[in-house]
C-alpha cells in the first residue's frame, strides 16, 4: 500500500484538536520541573501528526495532558488551552473527562506487554468502553468487538475474545490496544511510541494498520515517537520538540528536505540511515539537553548549537518562515541557504580511505564454527513426565571476524544474536560447536583455563543503567579490572590509567569521583566502554550498546567506537536490531532469524543487494528518515508472527512467513552456501549467480 496513493487530508478543515500555549509543571522532590512550555499545535481530521523528540523533550507529557492522565497531586497546568471540538479540555471536570476519554479520544501506549489487565479477558477489556460510553447491550457489544478485531487484523475473533492477554503476542496485544482505542469511533487517537517495543517487521505491520485506519475512518492521529524513519514514512505533519518546547513545525517533506532549525538538522544528520554506509561519519550534537528545573533563559538549544550567535541569549519565538513551516530559531531564515549544509558537515573518515587502499586480508580475530546453544525447558503440565523441550536458541551458526574489523549481527527478538554473544563470552557454555579465539577453542574449556581469554575479550552492554555497579564510583569501576588482574603495578599507576581511559572515551577527569546515578545514559555507556578498554582487549562484544540511547547520544557513541577501532585496532562483534546502525558501523553483516544465520556478507554487498527474503523484508520494514525516498517505497509488511522458539517450523525456519516458500522449504533445512564471492545465504530459492 503506497502512502502516496492515499489522499492527503484537507487542511482547510477546522482542526479537531488545537493546543494553545500549553505549560505543564511537575512538583518533584528536587524541585519544579517545567516539562512542557508554551507548546501549541493542531491536528486536523484524517491527518497523522507526529511529535518527535528525545527523552525529556516533553512530547509524552503534552499528550497525557490532553487526556487528563497526569498525576493530579503533583501536576500543575498554569497556562494554556486544549481545544477539542470547540471545548477546552483543561476546564472539564473529572467526570466530564472520563466521558471523553475512550469515547472521543483514544490512546495507546508503548508497552503492549503490560498495558492489558492480565486477569480479565480480552473481550471484557474490549467491550468495556462500549458498555460505559455507548451503553450497548451484550449482543451489540459482542458484535462490535468481533468487528473491531477484524478491523485490526486478528482472525478467529470469537475465540480470541474469551482469551487472556498472556495468550497473545506483543504485536497482537498492540492490535488489541488499537481496537480498544477505536472502539467508540473516536475523533482522535493518540499513540505514544506505539511500536518502539515491537520488532521491526511487526512495527511495520502495526504502523501500516494505523495509517490505513486513520485514512479510512477519518480519525485524526497523533503519533509520538523518537524514530525519524517512522515519521518520514507515515506522518503528514511534524512537530519537533526540544527541552519542553516546540523547535520546529512543518509538513513532513519540507521538514526532512529543508529543516529550518539547527536541532532538526542535527537530528537528521545524526541518525544512521539504512541507505548510507560506512563512508559517512555520523554528525554529532555535542553536549546534553538542559536541566528542566533550571532551563537557560535564552534559546535552550544554544549551548549545543553550531550556529549560535549572541542573539541566542534571548528566547526565540516560533515564527512562520515559509507557509506552514515554523521554526523557533533566530537564524531560521538563513537556514534556507548554505548555513544548513555547513552546520554538520558529513566528513569522510580518513581511515576509511586508508582502509580501502591498503587493506590486506588480515588474520581472523574470532572464528565461530557450528555454534549451537540449546536450552532445556520443561513443558507439559504433567509433573511426572520427564519430557523436556529443547529451545535451540542458537543453531549451527558460523562466522569469522577479521582482526580490527566489525561484524554486525542483526535480527529481531528471539533470533539468538544476544545468545551468540553470551556464548562467545563464555557467560554461557555452548552446547556444541567451536569458538576459536587466539589460537584456542574456548567453547568447552573449563573455567580455570579461560583467564587469558577473559582479558583479551571484553563486553559492552545495552542498558547503561544496569551495566554499572551503583555502589562504586566511576573510577573504581574502571580501575577494578586492572587491579584485580594485576595489569598495573600499583594504585598510582591505576589512577593514571583511569585518567587516560576517561580521556579516550571523552569524559572529563572529575567523572572518576562520581557515582553512576549521577551520570546520563550516554555518559554511563562511555564508562562501560572505558571499563572494557581497561583490560586492553583485542576484541569487544558489543551487545546492543546504543539501543537504549537517544538519537543524538547514539551518534556520539557510535563515532567513539569507530574512532577507538581505528586507533587501537579492536575487533568488534556488534549485535543490534537496528539495521541502519549496523550498516553504519559494520564491515560485514550477518542476519539471524530464530537461531539460524540467514545471510552473511560484506556490509555494502548485503545492503546493496540483499538476497535472502528475510533480509529483504527487514530492509523493507525499516523506515528511512527521508520523506521522498519513503514516498516511493512500497513497504511490503511481512505477514504473520515470529514463531515460538519452543516450536520452530520444520525445515527452513522462515518458511512460515516467506513469500517464496515451497514444500521443499518446509522439509529441508537450508545451509549457508556461498552464492556470490564473500556472500553466503541460507535459502533454497536463491540461485548462484556470477557477480
Amino acid at each position, binding site marked *: 500500500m503506497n502512502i502516496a496513493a492515499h489522499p492527503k487530508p484537507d487542511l482547510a478543515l477546522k482542526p479537531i484538536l488545537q493546543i494553545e500555549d500549553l505549560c505543564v509543571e511537575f512538583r518533584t522532590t528536587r524541585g519544579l520541573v517545567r516539562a512542557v512550555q508554551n507548546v501549541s499545535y493542531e491536528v486536523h481530521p484524517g491527518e497523522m501528526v507526529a511529535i518527535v523528540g528525545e527523552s525529556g523533550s516533553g512530547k509524552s507529557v503534552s499528550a497525557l495532558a490532553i487526556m487528563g*492522565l497526569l498525576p493530579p497531586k503533583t501536576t500543575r497546568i498554569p497556562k494554556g488551552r486544549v481545544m477539542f471540538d470547540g471545548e477546552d479540555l483543561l476546564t472539564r471536570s473529572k467526570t466530564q473527562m472520563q466521558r*471523553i476519554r475512550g469515547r472521543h479520544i*483514544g490512546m495507546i501506549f508503548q508497552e503492549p506487554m503490560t498495558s492489558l489487565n492480565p*486477569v480479565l479477558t480480552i473481550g471484557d477489556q474490549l467491550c468495556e468502553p462500549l458498555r*460505559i460510553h455507548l451503553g450497548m447491550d451484550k449482543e451489540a457489544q459482542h458484535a462490535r468487538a468481533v468487528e473491531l478485531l477484524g478491523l485490526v487484523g486478528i482472525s478467529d475473533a470469537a475465540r480470541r475474545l474469551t482469551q*487472556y492477554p*498472556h495468550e497473545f503476542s506483543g504485536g497482537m496485544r498492540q492490535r488489541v490496544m488499537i481496537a480498544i482505542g477505536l472502539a467508540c469511533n473516536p475523533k482522535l487517537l493518540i499513540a505514544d511510541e506505539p511500536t518502539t517495543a515491537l520488532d521491526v517487521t511487526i512495527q511495520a505491520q502495526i504502523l501500516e494498520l494505523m495509517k490505513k485506519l486513520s485514512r479510512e475512518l477519518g480519525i485524526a492521529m497523533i503519533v509520538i515517537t523518537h524514530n525519524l524513519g517512522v515519521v518520514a514514512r507515515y506522518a503528514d505533519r511534524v512537530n519537533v520538540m526540544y527541552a519542553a518546547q516546540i523547535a520546529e513545525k512543518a509538513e513532513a517533506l519540507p521538514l526532512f528536505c529543508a529543516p529550518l532549525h539547527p536541532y532538526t538538522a542535527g537530528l537528521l544528520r545524526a541518525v544512521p540511515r539504512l541507505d548510507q554506509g560506512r563512508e559517512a561519519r555520523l554528525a554529532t550534537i555535542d553536549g546534553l539537553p538542559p536541566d528542566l528545573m533550571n532551563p537557560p533563559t535564552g534559546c535552550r538549544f544554544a549551548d549545543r548549537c553550531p550556529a549560535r550567535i549572541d542573539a541566542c541569549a534571548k528566547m526565540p519565538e516560533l515564527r512562520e518562515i515559509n507557509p506552514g513551516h515554523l521554526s523557533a530559531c533566530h537564524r531560521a531564515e538563513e537556514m534556507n541557504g548554505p548555513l544548513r549544509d555547513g552546520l554538520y558537515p558529513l566528513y569522510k573518515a580518513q581511515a576509511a580511505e586508508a582502509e580501502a587502499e591498503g587493506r590486506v586480508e588480515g588474520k581472523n580475530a574470532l572464528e565461530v564454527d557450528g555454534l549451537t546453544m540449546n536450552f532445556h525447558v520443561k513443558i507439559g*503440565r504433567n509433573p511426572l513426565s520427564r519430557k523436556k523441550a529443547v529451545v535451540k536458541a542458537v543453531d549451527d551458526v558460523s562466522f569469522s571476524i577479521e582482526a580490527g574489523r566489525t561484524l554486525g549481527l542483526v535480527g529481531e527478538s528471539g533470533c539468538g544474536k544476544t545468545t551468540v554473544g553470551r556464548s562467545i563470552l563464555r557467560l554461557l557454555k555452548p552446547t556444541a560447536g567451536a569458538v576459536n579465539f587466539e589460537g584456542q577453542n574456548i567453547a568447552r574449556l573449563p573455567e580455570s583455563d579461560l583467564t587469558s581469554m577473559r582479558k583479551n575479550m571484553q563486553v559492552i552492554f545495552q542498558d547503561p543503567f544496569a551495566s554499572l555497579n551503583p555502589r562504586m564510583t566511576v573510577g573504581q569501576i574502571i580501575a577494578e579490572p586492572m587491579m584485580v588482574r594485576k595489569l598495573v603495578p600499583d594504585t598510582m599507576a591505576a589512577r593514571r590509567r583511569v585518567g587516560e581511559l576517561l580521556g579516550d572515551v571523552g569524559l572529563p577527569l572529575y567523572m572518576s569521583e562520581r557515582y553512576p546515578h549521577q551520570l546520563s545514559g550516554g555518559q554511563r555507556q562511555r564508562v562501560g566502554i572505558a571499563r572494557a578498554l581497561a583490560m586492553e582487549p583485542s576484541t569487544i562484544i558489543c551487545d546492543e550498546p546504543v539501543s537504549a540511547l537517544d538519537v543524538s547520544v547514539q551518534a556520539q557513541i557510535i563515532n567513539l567506537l569507530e574512532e577507538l577501532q581505528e586507533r587501537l585496532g579492536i575487533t568488534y562483534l556488534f549485535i543490534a536490531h537496528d539495521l541502519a546502525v549496523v550498516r553504519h558501523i559494520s564491515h560485514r553483516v550477518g542476519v539471524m532469524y530464530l537461531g539460524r544465520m540467514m545471510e552473511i556478507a560484506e556490509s555494502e554487498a548485503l545492503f546493496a543487494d540483499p538476497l535472502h527474503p528475510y533480509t529483504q523484508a527487514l530492509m523493507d520494514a525499516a523506515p528511512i528518515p527521508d520523506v521522498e525516498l519513503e514516498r516511493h517505497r512500497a513497504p511490503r509488511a511481512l505477514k504473520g508472527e515470529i514463531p515460538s522458539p519452543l516450536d520452530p517450523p520444520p525445515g527452513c525456519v522462515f518458511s512460515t512467513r516467506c513469500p517464496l516458500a515451497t514444500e521443499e522449504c518446509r522439509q529441508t533445512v537450508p545451509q549457508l552456501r556461498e552464492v556470490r564471492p564473500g556472500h553466503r545465504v541460507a535459502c533454497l530459492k536463491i540461485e548462484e549467480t556470477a557477480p
Partner: protein
Amino acid sequence: MMWYVIRRFALAIPTLIGVAIITFFLLRVLPGDIVEIKLRGDGGDVSEAALAAERARLGLDQPLLVQFADWMTGLATFDLGTSLWTGERVAHEIAIRLPLSLEVAILSTILAILIAFPLGTLAAVFRGTIIDYVVRIITIGGLAVPPFWLGMLMIVGLITWFDWLPALGFVPLFTDPVKNLSQLIWPALSVGYRYSSVVARMLRSTILEVLEEDYIRTARAKGVTERMVVAKHAMRNALLPAITVLGLEFAFLIGGLVVTEQVFSLNGIGLLFVESVLHNDFTMIQGLVMVVATGFVLINLMVDVLYALLDPRIRYE
C-alpha cells in the same frame, strides 16, 4: 489446572518429610534425660533398674535409627507415638485439644478478613490522607502489641467493667454457640489484631503497587471511573498476594495461640506445646510439630489452589 494442583501436592511431600526428619533428630539432641526428670522429679531416689525399665517401656533404649524408623512408619499410620510424660497416645492428646485451637484460629481469620480488607483498601485508595495515617498507625500497632498482653488487658477490662469471668471449662460450639463464642471471641480478638494488621498492610501495599501498573493507565484512558478502576481492575490483581499472606499468617496463628492460650487458660494445643517443652516430652513435641507443619502445608496448598482459580495465567499455563 489439575496438574498444577498435583504438582503442588507433590512438592509438599518432601517438605513434610524434611520436617519429620529435622524434628526427630533435633529433639533427640535434648540434653535432659526425660526419664530421669520424670521419675526423679520431686527429689527422691530411683534405682537404675527402675530407670532402665522405664526407658525400655518408652522404647528409648532402642538404637536411634530404629526409633527413627518407628517414628516414620508411625507417621504413615497417623500414629504419633506415646507421650513420654503422661503416657497417653500423642494423637489422642492432640485430638482432644485441637478443636479448641482451631476454632480460635478460624474465628481470628474471619475477624481478620472483616477488618483487614476494608482497612487496607481504604488506606490505599486514600493514600497520604489522614485515613491512611490512622490505618497505618493502627496496623503498625498490631505488629507491635504483644497478643498476650492485649489478652490480659482485655481480661482486666472485662472483669473491671463488665463483671465477666473467664470460663472454667470449654463449651463446644455446637453445644451452646452463644456461650462458646462469648468465651472465644476474646482470644480470637487478641490474636486477630495482629493477624488483621499484617493482611491490611500487605493489601495496602499491593493495591498501591497495582495502581502504578500500565494496565491501570489503560483503564483510565478508556474513561473508566476511578471507583471501577480500583474495584474491578486493581482489586482483582491485588487480592492475589493478599490471599497468599492470609494463608501464611494463618499458620503462624498457631504460634500466636501458644501464648494467648496461656493467658485465657484455654486447653488447646498451644498450651500443650509449652507444657511439652517444659517437660522435655519430645514425643509430644514431635507430634505437635508434625501436626502444625502439616496444617501449614495444607493451608498453603489451599492458598495455591485459590490463587490458581483467580489468576488465569496460572490456570491456563
